[in-house]
């Protein structure tokens, strides 16, 4: 009878009440403290410092400015009073000012157009392209190459895309007008003023769609790839038509994926400032201003701190409501599919 060496059980230590696999002896010196009994423990200040520092940073760059913003939204702060410090409480006057200003209301209207024809259309277009790519192209290499080409615009910085499209859309000598003339859609002397008041918002939507359609495309494509193939084979045996498969199987099963694509694009939509700034600067004559851009103008250009803060809060509320609605929907869908 041979006896085997008793194998050492993996050390499971309890340090500060939690299981740990690290030997306290291996701690750096500043990390260590001795308990009265003589056992080594983590110095009580270590966790406090490690958690405290990031909290301090977040307080400094997020929480303090937010509180500051809420405070000034209810005061008549502007450049003068900001430096003298004698701002006065004005209650909801700033909000009244914002909500009654045409500039804000029409910027909200434009945001609506942008959400509908920009963000929504991008998701729908991205979904359509993703499914077309997956169902229509059977060759894996071709599929990958097309996917990469479609995703390329997304990899450029948005401001650069803005500059690019500003050049492309120039009324004189712009590539787009040239193209339209060359293919005979337009007379040689005609000019489309893409960045003029009637079209400037639509030009922004165009440039943005060019860049961001790939995001919902990627999301939906990966969602489609992970759907179980057996379900599709069952549908083939059942004799379901392609349209039926799309409307009764694919789209319902991709519901939550598409909802996520919507949420991401909608959240981005509120931050849509970069291309506006580069391509039109909100112009001409404020005709392509979106709410965040107006808030930015109010606060940074005109230094109406109080009013800009009110803008920011209203935009925040608007965004919060929309995203909450989406999340509610998502939660409902996910709950219906739990424990699968």
């Amino acid at each position, binding site marked *: 009878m041979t006896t085997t060496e008793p194998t050492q059980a993996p050390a499971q230590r309890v340090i500060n009440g939690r299981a740990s696999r690290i030997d306290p002896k291996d701690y750096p010196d500043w990390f260590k403290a001795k308990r009265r009994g003589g056992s080594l423990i983590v110095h009580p200040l270590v966790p406090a410092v490690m958690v405290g520092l990031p909290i301090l940073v977040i307080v400094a760059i997020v929480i303090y400015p937010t509180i500051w913003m809420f405070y000034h939204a209810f005061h008549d702060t502007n450049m003068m009073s900001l430096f003298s410090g004698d701002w006065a409480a004005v209650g909801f006057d700033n909000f009244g000012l914002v909500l009654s200003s045409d500039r804000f209301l029409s910027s909200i209207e434009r945001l609506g157009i942008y959400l509908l024809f920009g963000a929504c259309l991008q998701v729908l277009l991205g979904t359509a392209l993703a499914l077309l790519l997956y169902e229509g192209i059977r060759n894996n290499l071709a599929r990958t190459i097309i996917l990469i080409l479609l995703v390329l615009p997304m990899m450029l910085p948005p401001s650069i895309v803005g500059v690019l499209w500003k050049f492309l859309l120039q009324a004189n000598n712009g590539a787009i007008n040239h193209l339209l003339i060359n293919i005979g859609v337009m007379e040689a002397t005609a000019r489309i003023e893409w960045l003029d008041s009637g079209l400037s918002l639509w030009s922004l939507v165009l440039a943005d769609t060019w860049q961001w359609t790939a995001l919902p495309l990627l999301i939906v494509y990966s969602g489609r790839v992970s759907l*179980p193939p*057996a*379900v599709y*084979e*069952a*549908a*083939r*045996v*059942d*004799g*379901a*038509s392609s349209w*039926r498969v799309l409307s*009764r*199987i694919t789209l*319902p*099963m991709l*519901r939550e994926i598409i909802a996520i694509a919507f949420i991401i694009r909608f959240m981005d939509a509120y931050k849509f400032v970069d291309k506006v700034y580069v391509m039109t600067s909100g112009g001409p004559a404020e005709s392509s201003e979106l709410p965040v851009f107006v808030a930015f103008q109010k606060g940074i250009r005109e230094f109406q701190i109080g009013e800009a803060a009110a803008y920011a809060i209203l935009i925040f509320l608007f965004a919060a409501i929309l995203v909450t609605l989406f999340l509610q929907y998502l939660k409902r869908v996910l709950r*219906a*599919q*739990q*424990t*699968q």
Partner: protein
Amino acid sequence: MANLELIDICKGFAEPVIDRLSLTVEKGEFFVVVGPSGIGKTTLLRCVAGLESLDAGRVVIDGKDLTRVPPYQRKVAMTFESYALYPHLTVFDNIASPLKARGLPKAEIAQRVGEVARLLRIDQLLGRRPHEVSGGQKQRTALGRTLVAKPDVFLLDEPISHLDAKIRHELRRQFHELEELRQVATIYVTHDYAEALSLGDRVGVMGPGGLQQIGPPREVFDRPGTLFVARHLGQPSINAFDGVLEENGGGLQVRSETGFALPVAQAHAGRLRDRNEREITVGIRPQFIDVVDAGVAADGRFLFDARVDLHEALGANGVLIAKADGQSLSVITSTSAAFEPDEPVRLAVDPNRFHYFSADLGHNVLL
């Protein structure tokens, strides 16, 4: 009339999976394909369903050549190993999906789904979604989806293999009793030999390349055509070892590489002598080896001594692994028996129960 005919079908991916397989399944017949995992059983079903295109050969249903016909025009219904239920649809809508795809009127759909659901005893669950029902109920939903379509051919891919033993037993009985399955040709695929032997009117054992043997369950089990078939049917697996045939005082005996020798039955000796080949593989089913008391009379059997390697008590019976002259053998024992490792045991076999397979190709040389 023959309902399903497969004529010389071939299908391969990187390498051939099915090689010139021919099979006829009669109307009303329950045909079970059994074989180890990854051997191509599912591929066979997919070829019949039309989900895979054939490399060669023909699929004929009710006299009509359907080789080039898409799945939904074949009047074939298939259940999938993963059930392939639509997760976002209720049990009702899942069962109704083939009827809806055909555009039947709502009232008729409701009536037919109701009938099938009552038959399968899932009529209480019609409003639930697949994730809200148990594995057995999911299986019945998948089965309901195929039954409701009233197809000519049923293809069932491991329909009950992933369920726990109790539900499996219940569903097995249900397969026996389902009148609907008796109206059409059914191919049922499983890796479980017990399921195959219990359910099949006929059983086909699938090996590399295709069906190695087709026949009634009893016959496939008792007279395996090849070593592969013998090995795949039965748990524990048949004892098989290579040996050489030798003359031994007027009789024939087979001696294994380790030196373990067994006599050949008179009835078999002639056939084996005629073959003029010394090398042979012997197969002995574990249930035909008995543990006997030391002084017991031979009574036509061959008695030999062995030593216990291992004994597993499994409730209804036990499995004893014993070694005789270096040759390891599995033996099915009665419940009450208990063995210690290294304990000597006396074993008895009836040489008439032996199977002999050619050492090179594995054919049963007695058939």
